[in-house]
């Protein structure tokens, strides 16, 4: 069925586009459609998990609780955390943006294994529905970390949770493998690793984390499932198991997982800041290599989550020092983005505003991470509200700000239309204010003595908690604006043309939305995509826009 065309001696396959609705939009093999499917599905779960977050905040309006029973409250925050990590941030950054953008950026027509890609995607909504359905049979209560023996006591839904997270892990592992092979084998001629866009470097550093770390989690989950369903004693100390074993295996996955959730966002930052500063990215090589350094060292720090678990004292030190060391490549990235802004012609578009918000908030979360890495201070704040404060600063202030920045940036590529800049700014301002008001005071609450995962708390903290809840409503309003803006703009946004931001990476040199085959002819690459003063470093792109009217829009 394939049409074979000869171009400059290179035989190239262009498969015909499937015509039926089901093959085109449901069980699609096209990485762009799959990427959008990931994004839509993740946003649906984002809304559900966000509603759970608001239930948490409503409960905490009153020091004596009363809105939810303690058991229901425990279920709510457990599913909130699990869903946000596994069903929202990881899928949207890897499966979503990774799928949509990465193959085009390296000049490929699709990922290496399109069928596997489709399977990865379809596992994900099924796993998500399984996770939420655990509410029907008594959801897990022990938080997203599900430490045994508590998780052995949890409701029947805890086993469902194990199965759902296991499945979502399979999806992640397949995606990681697929991306790794794609980036190793399918780069366009001349697209060397040192010419690859930094978003792809972010994905390239993430892929091995997805492949290797997720398998450890799968083993831990399988063991927990077997212990719960069949009584195989892995974790129950009364039967000779070890509860600390779970913690090691869980964090061996979940610490790399925080880099799975931030490295692609770093990649988005590198693209967005360079394009909107109208300036080459500063220190390309150092940014690229620091991603790899973070990914590598991310495997060697997991026990810093366990300083209070009684691991041998001398074993704590290397974990502490290595965790401090990760601050260096992370700092290098932040300084490099700052230097990219220096001397630029900065367009303060919504996408750029979110990138600036990312820099401000993620740096704060990174610094509180250094506080937590220092064992003596960690012994004080571990298990308190300082932890949710830190993790929301890096996950919401970092990853989610990156997601929003990427959405406003690539939305014109996905749909051919802009999202409203006016409402985008409203979204940015309200979201940032709401976010800081919700999570900044949590550092103080934790240091002062409020433990996390509590349905009721000491009356002295009630005022601050009420303030936080009100700010969280502002954040919800901002999210509502975002979704309305996005859905409205799909059909009614201003037409944007193929390259509204004047960007130089490959995905902006083809029509919006990109055709099924991406490139009529695979381009050749002879330079970095960040030299704004030079002509584009690509050959064979002349025909790409020939049959598409080039609309120059205004944003």
């Amino acid at each position, binding site marked *: 069925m394939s049409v074979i065309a000869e171009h400059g001696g290179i035989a190239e396959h262009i498969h015909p586009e499937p015509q039926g609705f089901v093959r085109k939009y449901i069980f699609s093999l096209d990485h762009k459609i799959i990427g959008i499917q990931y994004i839509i599905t993740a946003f649906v779960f984002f809304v559900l998990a966000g509603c759970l977050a608001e239930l948490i905040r409503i409960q905490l309006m009153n020091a004596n609780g009363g809105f939810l029973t303690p058991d229901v409250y425990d279920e709510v925050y457990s599913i909130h955390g699990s869903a946000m990590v596994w069903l929202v941030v990881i899928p949207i950054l890897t499966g979503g943006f990774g799928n949509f953008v990465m193959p085009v950026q390296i000049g490929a027509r699709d990922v290496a294994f399109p069928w596997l890609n489709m399977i990865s995607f379809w596992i994900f909504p099924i796993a998500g529905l399984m996770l939420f359905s655990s509410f029907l049979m008594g959801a897990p209560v022990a938080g997203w970390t599900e430490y045994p023996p508590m998780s052995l006591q949890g409701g029947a839904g805890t086993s469902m949770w194990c199965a759902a997270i296991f499945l979502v892990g399979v999806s992640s592992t397949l995606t990681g493998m697929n991306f790794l092979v794609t980036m190793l084998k399918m780069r366009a001629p001349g697209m060397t690793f040192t010419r690859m866009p930094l978003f792809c470097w972010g994905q390239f550093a993430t892929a091995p984390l997805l492949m290797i770390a997720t398998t450890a989690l799968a083993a831990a989950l399988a063991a927990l499932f077997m212990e719960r369903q069949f009584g195989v004693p892995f974790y129950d100390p009364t039967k000779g198991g070890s509860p600390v074993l779970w913690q090691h295996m869980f964090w061996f996955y979940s610490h790399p997982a925080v880099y799975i959730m931030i490295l692609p966002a770093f990649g988005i930052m590198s693209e967005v800041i360079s394009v909107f500063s109208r300036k080459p990215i500063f220190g390309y090589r150092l940014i690229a290599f620091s991603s790899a350094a973070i990914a590598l060292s991310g495997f060697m720090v997991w026990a810093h989550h366990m300083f209070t678990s*009684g691991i041998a004292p001398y074993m704590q030190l290397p974990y502490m020092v290595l965790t401090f060391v990760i601050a260096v490549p992370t700092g290098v990235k932040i300084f490099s983005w700052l230097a990219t802004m220096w001397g630029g012609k900065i367009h303060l578009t919504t996408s750029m505003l979110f990138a600036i918000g990312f820099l401000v908030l993620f740096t704060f979360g990174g610094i509180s991470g250094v506080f937590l890495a220092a064992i003596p201070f960690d012994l004080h704040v571990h298990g308190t509200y300082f932890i949710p404060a830190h993790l929301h600063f890096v996950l919401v202030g970092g990853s989610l700000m990156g997601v929003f920045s990427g959405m406003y940036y690539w939305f014109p590529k996905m749909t051919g239309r802009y999202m409203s800049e006016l409402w985008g700014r409203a979204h940015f301002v309200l979201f940032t204010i709401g976010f800081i008001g919700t999570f900044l005071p949590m550092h103080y609450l934790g240091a002062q003595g409020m433990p996390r995962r509590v349905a009721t708390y000491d009356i002295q903290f009630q005022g601050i908690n009420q303030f936080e809840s009100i700010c969280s409503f502002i954040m919800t309003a901002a999210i509502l604006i975002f979704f309305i803006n996005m859905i409205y703009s799909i059909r009614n946004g201003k037409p944007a043309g193929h390259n509204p931001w004047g960007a130089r990476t490959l995905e902006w040199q083809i029509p919006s939305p990109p055709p099924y085959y991406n490139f009529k002819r695979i381009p050749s690459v002879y330079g970095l995509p960040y030299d704004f003063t030079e002509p584009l470093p690509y050959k064979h792109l002349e025909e790409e826009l020939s049959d598409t009217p080039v609309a120059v829009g205004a944003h």
Partner: protein
Amino acid sequence: MRSLSDPKGRKHRKRSGASVEQSTKPDRGFWIVTAILGLISLGGILYFWMIPTVEPWLPPEGGHPGDQVDWLFRFMASSAALLYTYVVGYIIYFAIRFRRRRSDPDDALGVNLHDNPKLEAAWTIVPTLFVILLSVLSIRIWYVLQVQPTNGLVVESIGRQWYFTFRYPDVNGEVTDQMHLPVNVPVTLNLTSGDVIHSFWVPDMRLKEDMIPGIINTIRFTPTRIGTYQIICTEFCGTGHSEMNKQVMVVQPMAAYQKWYHGWQLRNAHVTNALATATLGGKIQLAGGNVAAGKALFNEKCSACHALGPFNQRIVGPGLLGVLHDPSHPNLVNGDLAVPANVAEILQNGYTGSIGHMPNQAQNGLSNKDIANLVAYLNTLK
């Protein structure tokens, strides 16, 4: 706003490219901003070193080595103030100073600056040096935590759903209400759990360690300030986790401590330490149970969780008034008939189910004789 057009796709205007010639050297404005940020961060640094205590940020400090943690906090907070002021200050300054102005042509570009090896080396090496310094300081304080005196009082605390119990040397049984410590005496606190993982935290002492079933974790410290300190569980442990903060650590002068200790020792004279005498398991001889001894035991050990009220009057477990005589509840929580032998069986083997969790004999420290006494007492409640 106008569009960012592709420089290749549209004709350049005359003025475009002017910005390319812009100097990459920092100018006066940059140094002025740098100086202002320096002053702000200096204010932050001075603040964290000059405040007499870190109480605005952390709870009042109650012992050694918690004071060491406060020093590390001051160091990290002042370093963070320096770094964060500069990062945020520069972001805001650059975003304003280098914003595209309305007068700029559509396709104006920033300076063509790719890298600066010296600058990149600097911001790799300087943070590395800082990380080494921070590691050295943290390890020093970590070391202080490891070498606390081992010759003081040894206390054992056991986390249970959802309260803490405390064991003292030379006293049988477990204290269930509060922990007493003499001031200025080093304490070795051994922590473990009777069920799931708990965590023992006294914010004022800046010390925390998990209570893990099957493992004994140790923390050593010296309380230096007389007072009453809240003990908080910081590891999620089930329905009652939020309420597992009601007990306190009482730090008192030696004389007062000894008075409490001896009084409690006397009250517990009748308790045979089940773990010490190893009369666990086996058939319980219910005959000859001592009602008075059972009553004392109930008040000492059971009343923390069980009210002397009707079944639905719950503290942690159900109320036990009339448990053996209530016609509306002919069955016990585990479904067995409410007869003395079955009550003894629950006291011996514990119960975990829809009502909650009742510790078993190995956890509740009751000997077979104690159980007989308790059942005799429960039988008198109508």
